[in-house]
């Protein structure tokens, strides 16, 4: 076969280095790779306590080709607000500031700082790579953990009975200029949304469903497959919301059974038939709600 012209599917420059300390098959590491490809090197990253505190490497090494500021668990949004203000003072307003937090640092511990920054409409991008539990400390439940999922603090005889917190709904209620969900299984959509976020002034929030092989009890090679099943089963719709009002559904999958998504993961191993039916029902109901919001 001869040489053919290559049309790269995603931007070619890499701003993440090999040798980072993510587990094999980590969705969060792939997510960072895409995010920086989209944002480019004129970017600063704020990382509160989360898996990425470790993935980024120990002093004096870094996994990213852009500056990282490591900060305390509850402070990502506050630090990002401050960093943006400082850059503005220096006349460096073209720098994109990205807070990069897990679900623990977003839904729970960093929530007040996030809500405050959103309400003030601070000009930065807040990204939650959502792996649905405190994975870095040993898979403890967070308010993002879905109904019925096993974690070390919701063992099978004492499982999580509450649904996952609706962080998208909460941020939409803050009426921020831009809000989106992305999946590592849809890289083109992922990168487009980060590029769009970069072009918008004010508060941007992006949620990434981020598969975690050890925490979700899946094989390392299944991360993309499971991400895709989450979207195809409508558990994780790919959407954009502008100013809390204008909803766009980026993909309308035919809708496979939630069972396909649940059965692919060890953390849902003990779900009963009724549980699966309940989850399906909830997913269908929310999808209908979403469809009404889109139209």
């Amino acid at each position: 076969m001869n040489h053919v012209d290559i049309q790269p599917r995603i931007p070619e420059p890499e701003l993440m280095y090999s040798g980072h300390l993510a587990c094999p098959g980590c969705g969060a590491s792939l997510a960072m790779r895409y995010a920086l490809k989209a944002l480019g090197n004129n970017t600063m990253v704020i990382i509160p306590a989360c898996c990425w505190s470790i993935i980024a490497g120990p002093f004096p090494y870094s996994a990213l080709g852009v500056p990282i500021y490591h900060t305390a668990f509850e402070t990502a949004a506050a630090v990002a607000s401050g960093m943006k203000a400082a850059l503005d003072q220096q006349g460096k307003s073209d720098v994109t500031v990205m807070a990069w937090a897990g679900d623990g640092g977003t839904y729970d511990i960093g929530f007040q700082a996030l809500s405050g920054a959103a309400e003030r409409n601070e000009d930065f991008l807040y990204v939650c790579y959502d792996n649905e539990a405190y994975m870095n400390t040993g898979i403890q439940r967070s308010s993002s953990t879905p109904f019925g999922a096993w974690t070390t603090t919701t063992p099978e005889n004492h499982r999580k009975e509450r649904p996952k917190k609706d962080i998208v709904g909460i941020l939409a209620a803050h009426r921020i200029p831009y809000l989106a969900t992305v999946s590592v299984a849809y890289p083109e959509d992922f990168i487009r949304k980060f590029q769009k976020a970069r072009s918008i002034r004010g508060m941007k929030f992006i949620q990434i469903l981020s598969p975690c092989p050890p925490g979700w009890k899946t094989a390392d090679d299944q991360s993309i497959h499971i991400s895709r099943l989450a979207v195809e089963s409508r558990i994780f719709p790919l959407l954009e919301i502008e100013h809390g009002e204008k909803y766009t559904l980026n993909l309308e999958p035919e809708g496979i059974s939630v069972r396909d998504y649940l059965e692919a993961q060890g953390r849902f191993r003990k779900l009963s038939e009724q549980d699966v039916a309940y989850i399906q029902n909830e997913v269908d109901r929310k999808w209908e709600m979403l469809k009404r919001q889109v139209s």
Partner: protein
Amino acid sequence: MSKKITFTSIADLPPLVVSMGTTEVNATGSWRYLRPVYHDKTAPCIEGCPASEDIEQYMYWAARGDFDKAWEVLVEENPFPAVCGRVCYHPCESSCNRDHFDQSLGINSIERFIGDHGLEFSLDRFKVAEEREQKIAVAGAGPAGLAAAYHLRRLGYQVTVYEKEEKPGGILQYGIPRYRLPKHILEAEIMRLERFGVEIKTGVQVGKDIPWNEFLQHDAVFLAVGVHKSRKLNVPGEDLDGVIAGLDFLSRINSGEDVSLGKNVAVIGGGNTAMDAVRTALRLGSTPAIYYRRTRAEMPAILDEIEEAEREGIPMEFLVTPVELIGENGALKAMKLQRMELGEPDESGRRRPVPVEGSEYVVEVDNVITAIGEQGDFTSIPEKLIEWGVVKSDAFGQTEQRPVFAGGDIIEQPHTVVHAIGSGKKAAMAIHAYLNGGDIATLADKIHVGNKGGVSFLRFRDGHEGDPVDNHEVVTFENINTSYFTRKDRHQVPELDVKTRITNFEEVKGTIDREAAMDEALRCFNCGVCNMCDNCLVFCPDVAIKRRDDRFRYEIDYAYCKGCGICVVECPRSALSLVPEGK
């Protein structure tokens, strides 16, 4: 790779905790216990093709609109793409993995487009060796003989093909009707061979016009004289006027003779000759019908041909066999038929038809065309080469007598054009090995594609060095990641409407257009072969997959690859494998 940073004293430390190097100091490849490797495999269509066309590769080029390159890939293995694109029974399509997804790829229609695209192309680019002195003679200018001549010529040999008929082509010239294969298409592909230096001498029968001993004076000879003696019905009345042997009938029509048939024409048989004869009779203005002793399911004809005959309104009477042909003054008047029923399976695996006592009935017929099979006429071939009505040979066409090789319908293999072409290619390789003091059997492992006996000329001539290929691992549908394909029906082939076509010998099926050919080729899964879709590169969480420096395909940086295996699972076409580390 970033350098390891060592602080020897407090004074070496930076005033703030800032990074001074990259994580590339961590060779995370040491975590790996499974190793992804790029590993091309064989697509099932290629295994399914008796001529071992590299279908996957020509689909790759066709999908990109490079039909010159597609033609080159195709003709590397088969010099008759425009012919095969019309007459092949395309077992590639029944092997196609896409069949389990929506519909198999329209390989045959793309092959035809490519063949027509390159109809005027020269074969000169396929010459792979300097001229050689050795002279090779081929008996029979049918698909097997011409395919052998082509490949031998490529290897530099001086090849002469002897054909007893007036024109070359064998079954393609005299058997297959023009409405399936127009003469100018066949002649273009044969003339191309002649311009390539293959000498064809027509009107010369080996064993008669050239004595056998003289024929054997060549450095090697290839026998591919075909089988054209129609089997007899062995019923009373077979000598009556109006009873015609199927192949004779087709041959006369194909030679431009006027054959006058009566109104009611009975064609006996269920194979391709029967279908060709019955559809030809229809075009001559008769009212023909098929009489077959088993059911439609057991008919050996290509399904397409059966369907076309049905579409043309030809009645088919199943489970009947003629027991007597009845004449009046030496001319055929009627045919006595007996009903059959299916009994136990016979050696062909099909259920054996058994006569039903007392079920005889008579139909009025003006002609009976017999098409119940053909057999070889081996009167000119030495007896010791024959066994059970075929020329005894091994998988590469080597007979027990050197330097005699054989192929096509006279050896034991299915009687199809594409099997004939495949056998010609195999014999050419065997002859080359023989003339160079080698044994083709020692190369078998290197040149086989798949596990059904097909061989690749490309691998024969250059060993296909470079990217690792597993010739024998055939990709199954389970190996395909269907998430990356959307369901789409195959393109329909244009064809003449029934009313128009049955009045003449115009070609029934058309060639799809360029756009349709590209579009259809894009449906190809490209099973087992990297087509640079970028999935592995895009989905690597460890930035361990890079485009190669020449920007052709990718390489894995094993210093960092953690062996998660995402690239292997997300490869749509199984061009990567995961192997245990340390093996």
